[in-house]
């Protein structure tokens, strides 16, 4: 039972990551492979605020989100001018640079040693130390993220994003400063990734750079593409499938390291298969 709760918490965390990344890739058509950088920034910000500055989780959370948002603003300004594959390459480079910072700025992040001893959240004396309570917290945050995503896509802003996705120049003629739109959605998406990061840090109680590599961003990309671009429920479905799958492999009896490679091989095959046969993913409305 504990095991199932553990999996469920991860589904929530990756659900938040998938929903937020879908806003950028699925709704706006910007293929960003940098999401893990914002996820990591949120995690490290929360971790350090909790362990070294004595912050309460619920105070650290907005700070982590704002920091992720600021980083996204700075980089978004730079990247929003790049076209298609150059945008993707730029975000790959950005992910690697940020990961290098996590790994090498040892004075701040303790480098490869990571940040241990992160507390579970505490609210008015109540500690979320039981996994089941943490799951409830995660579900609440997931629902909030879903709500935000829906709010965005149902608004006039959401309609503009879809237009940018299809023909940015054509829509700009009609009075839209599309750069602002791309920037804002990138920032919002990054803030939500930061939220997931803080949640992750507080759950695992220890973080290190290995959780925020380029491979992680690729995993997030697989979630969004599998579930379906432009679909919120698709992002959730993708998260569900890709979190459960490696556990299923372990269950079948593969040793842990083979299971890890099998999981990687499966994402790879999935990505290829999806591009060949179903580029809009399982529930998606937008074909890349």
């Amino acid at each position, binding site marked *: 039972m504990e095991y199932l709760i553990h999996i469920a918490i991860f589904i929530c965390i990756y659900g938040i990551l998938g929903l937020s990344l879908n806003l950028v890739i699925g709704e706006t058509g910007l*293929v960003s492979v940098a999401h893990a950088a914002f996820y990591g920034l949120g995690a490290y910000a929360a971790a350090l605020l909790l362990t070294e500055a004595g912050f309460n989780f619920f105070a650290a959370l907005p700070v982590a989100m704002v920091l992720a948002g600021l980083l996204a603003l700075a980089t978004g300004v*730079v990247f929003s*001018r*790049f076209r*298609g*594959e*150059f945008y*993707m*390459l*730029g975000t*790959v*480079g*950005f992910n*690697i*640079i940020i990961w*290098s*910072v996590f*790994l*090498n700025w040892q004075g701040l992040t303790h480098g490869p040693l990571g940040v241990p001893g992160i507390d579970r959240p505490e609210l008015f004396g109540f500690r979320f130390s039981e996994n089941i309570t943490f799951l409830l917290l995660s579900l609440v945050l997931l629902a909030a993220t879903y709500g935000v995503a829906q709010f965005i896509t149902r608004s006039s802003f959401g309609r503009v994003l879809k237009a940018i996705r299809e023909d940015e120049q054509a829509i700009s003629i009609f009075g839209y400063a599309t750069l602002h739109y791309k920037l804002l959605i990138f920032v919002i998406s990054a803030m939500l990734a930061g939220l997931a990061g803080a949640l992750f840090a507080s759950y695992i109680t220890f973080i290190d750079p290995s959780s925020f590599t*380029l491979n992680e961003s*690729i995993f997030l*990309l697989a979630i969004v*593409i599998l579930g379906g671009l432009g679909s919120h429920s698709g992002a959730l479905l993708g998260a569900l499938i890709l979190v459960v799958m490696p556990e299923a492999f372990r269950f079948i009896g593969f040793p842990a*390291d*083979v299971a890890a*490679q*099998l999981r*990687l*091989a499966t*994402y*790879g*095959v*999935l*990505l*290829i*298969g999806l*591009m*060949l046969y179903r*580029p809009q993913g399982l529930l998606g409305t937008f074909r*890349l």
Partner: protein
Amino acid sequence: MDIIVQIALNAVIAGATYSLVALGVNLLYSTGRFFDLGYGGLMTVGGYAAFFLYKESGFPLVAALVLAVIITGIIGFVIEKLIYRPLRQRKASNTVLLIASLGVITVIQAGLAMAFTSQFQTLSRNIAGQRTFEISGGIITETQVVILVAGLVVMALLGVVLKYTLWGKAVRAVADDEEVAQVVGINSERVIGIIFFIGACIGAMAGIAVGFDTGLQPTMGLPLLLKGIVAAIIGGIGNVWAGVIGAFALAIIENLGAWKFSGEWKDAISFAVLIFFLIFRPQGIWPK
């Protein structure tokens, strides 16, 4: 003074390897018109094929290397035929091809890790006893000299073929404008297939070079490929020879940076350079 010479020598070796990679990247990009991340996987395959034949199956060195290169070439050809060609015929966007290629490298990496474990392997039979040469106070190993010479020979051969043979002209025609080339009667599909074969062969050589010089790991492909892409972009994407210069430039910047700041920041520096070029000079130093 010695240290400068050593940095220069290191840069020359790194530059030679990156040039091979950049060469392949440019060849593939000019004809296939997308950044094939699977190419990174192929480089790793080349290294491991050589490892399997030479160190695990006892083939004589030259035979092992030649076989490894050819096997990799065939695999590259097959991947193009099975995955990229159908996508290109459907007029898939560059992003779709890029994502499919991401799937390819992920599968290759995972497969190699399952077959050879994720442990570091080396191609040299006798690392400690290698001959070294001293040049103006810097040291260069025999392996490195061989890599350098082989690299230059390959590039020269390729240059001759591209410029003076009928087939080379066909390649340049397809690179220039595929539709027009088809109109003139060139079978562009066959040309592209052969280019992928040759590109994979060159990639295998780069993988083997790294295997001898530093060692093999299933995950070595993507970082190496990314360096090659950065080199190609610095030089001017699509301009096969400018990529070589870009490669040496990148190697010099990287090694200087590693000396000034510290080795761990090497990757971050390369990608900072990439982003710099994407912002200020996306067409590279020598645009096509």
